[in-house]
């Protein structure tokens, strides 16, 4: 089985936000929630870079660790998913996540956040693959259809890579070797406790 990861090549990202839009459309994500977002660092200064970021599907994920009802699980492809049936909307995963991935449909008072929502790596949830219940709660399950996450698949500059960690790391390494520079595999050190030497 593959160890699925995301890798954003910030030297290619043009901050078009198409990944954000495609994700929202594909999964019909609730209002106010962006499972993926593009953050621009050093905005307007020389050397500005943009990074597309979502749930990184961490190794030994902090969200799963702190969840008081243990609603998270890791698939055979190392994708971190959760059950919205078990989630109580306490907010702990949001406190623990290094990437700000968990979000809640409501910002109501008295802690009524609703069920947590986050990037599923286009892999749905615990329901049957591609069932209506899965679609309603988590969005499309492209992985079950043999497809990779849509954000990476439709990235116009191929900045955002998704797939087996070793394969996307070798693609990135090849790029860095060829062009002679690379700003790093954003988030890898924190998510996977390893990074790509460049």
């Amino acid at each position: 089985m593959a160890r699925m990861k995301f890798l954003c090549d910030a030297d290619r990202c043009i901050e078009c936000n198409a990944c954000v839009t495609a994700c929202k459309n594909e999964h019909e994500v609730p209002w106010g929630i962006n499972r993926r977002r593009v953050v621009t660092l050093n905005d307007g200064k020389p050397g500005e870079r943009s990074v597309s970021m979502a749930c990184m599907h961490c190794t030994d994920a902090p969200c799963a660790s702190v969840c008081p009802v243990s609603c998270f699980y890791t698939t055979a492809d190392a994708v971190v998913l959760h059950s919205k049936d078990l989630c109580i909307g306490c907010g702990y995963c949001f406190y623990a996540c290094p990437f700000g991935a968990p979000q809640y449909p409501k910002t109501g008072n008295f802690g009524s956040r609703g069920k947590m929502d986050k990037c599923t790596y286009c892999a749905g949830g615990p329901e049957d693959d591609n069932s209506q219940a899965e679609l309603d709660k988590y969005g499309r399950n492209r992985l079950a259809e043999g497809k990779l996450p849509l954000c990476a698949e439709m990235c116009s500059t191929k900045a955002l890579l998704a797939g087996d960690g070793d394969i996307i790391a070798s693609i990135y390494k090849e790029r860095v070797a060829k062009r002679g520079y690379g700003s790093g595999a954003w988030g890898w050190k924190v998510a996977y406790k390893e990074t790509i030497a460049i």
Partner: protein
Amino acid sequence: MTSMLSKVIRTGLLSLVFGLFVVAMPASAQQPSSVNPTAQSVKEAQLLDALKPGQSLAGRVSIPNKDAANLIQPGRDWRAFNQETLPRIGTIAILGVLALLVLFYLVRGKIRIDAGPSQMRITRFGSVDRFVHWLTATSFIALAITGANVTFGKSVLMPMMGPEAFSAWSGMAKLIHNYVGFAFMAGVALTFLIWVKDNIPGATDLKWILVGGGLLSKGTHPPAKRFNGGQKIVFWSVVLGGAFLSLSGWHLLFPTAEGMAEAQWHATLHGTVAFVMTALIIGHIYIGSVGMEGAFDAMASGEVDLNWAKEHHSLWVKEEMERKSGSRISGAAQPAE
């Protein structure tokens, strides 16, 4: 004529532009052959190294949710605290105080009224006092149980109940916790208002604490006013601990007003203070019920046995006797001695 003129001008401009281009050619050829476009670019490794603990790597986003501008928040301290330190604090605090109480009960037994029940009763707490006490007490117990569920539930209850039932209970517990919190806040505020005047620490309390309140040996009863040293410790712990719990809880309740680092800090404070308070309150419940004869009456009917009052609150009884009109002593007409 005009078309001729424009043609001439156009040709002239074109040749000028072309000429400039030709002139510029050698200039660009003199520039360094390979320009490194990332010479000044931000690099993840450098940015992460520059972060101080608790800081996050942030930029700009074009979506309305400005919290999303935090790209990476590397700190995993809160996770370690929440999963290891806090359960340890909770276990030590709760099991520790229970062990101490069992030991105390085995050594000292139930603390009796040394002079025996007097058949005479003195009003200790009126209805307002008791209402405030039980408002705070019941809400605290509900909050302690539903709060401890967050820390210990998944390791203790979930294996017994199964994930679905445990999730349903935890969802309910969260709602109870979030709403009953307001009753507790009101209780703490009222506790402070109605009892602060009798809880100013003084020399009497120091003496009381130095002899352990007389709890350790039979027949020792250091003088005390309306509240003795031990009760004043409970009072100030409830007021200060309650204030910390209320403030941190308030921040956790209203998600729009919180960033992640702030929320982590409030959750840390909330959990730690809560377990320390729970341990203290278990001790308070013990000594107010099974641990001491006659103590529970104070918060049940509000009327306590006169001999109990003389032993535990001698100075208060004297004060009450002096302004007898304000205090009702009921029961058989015996001289109070």
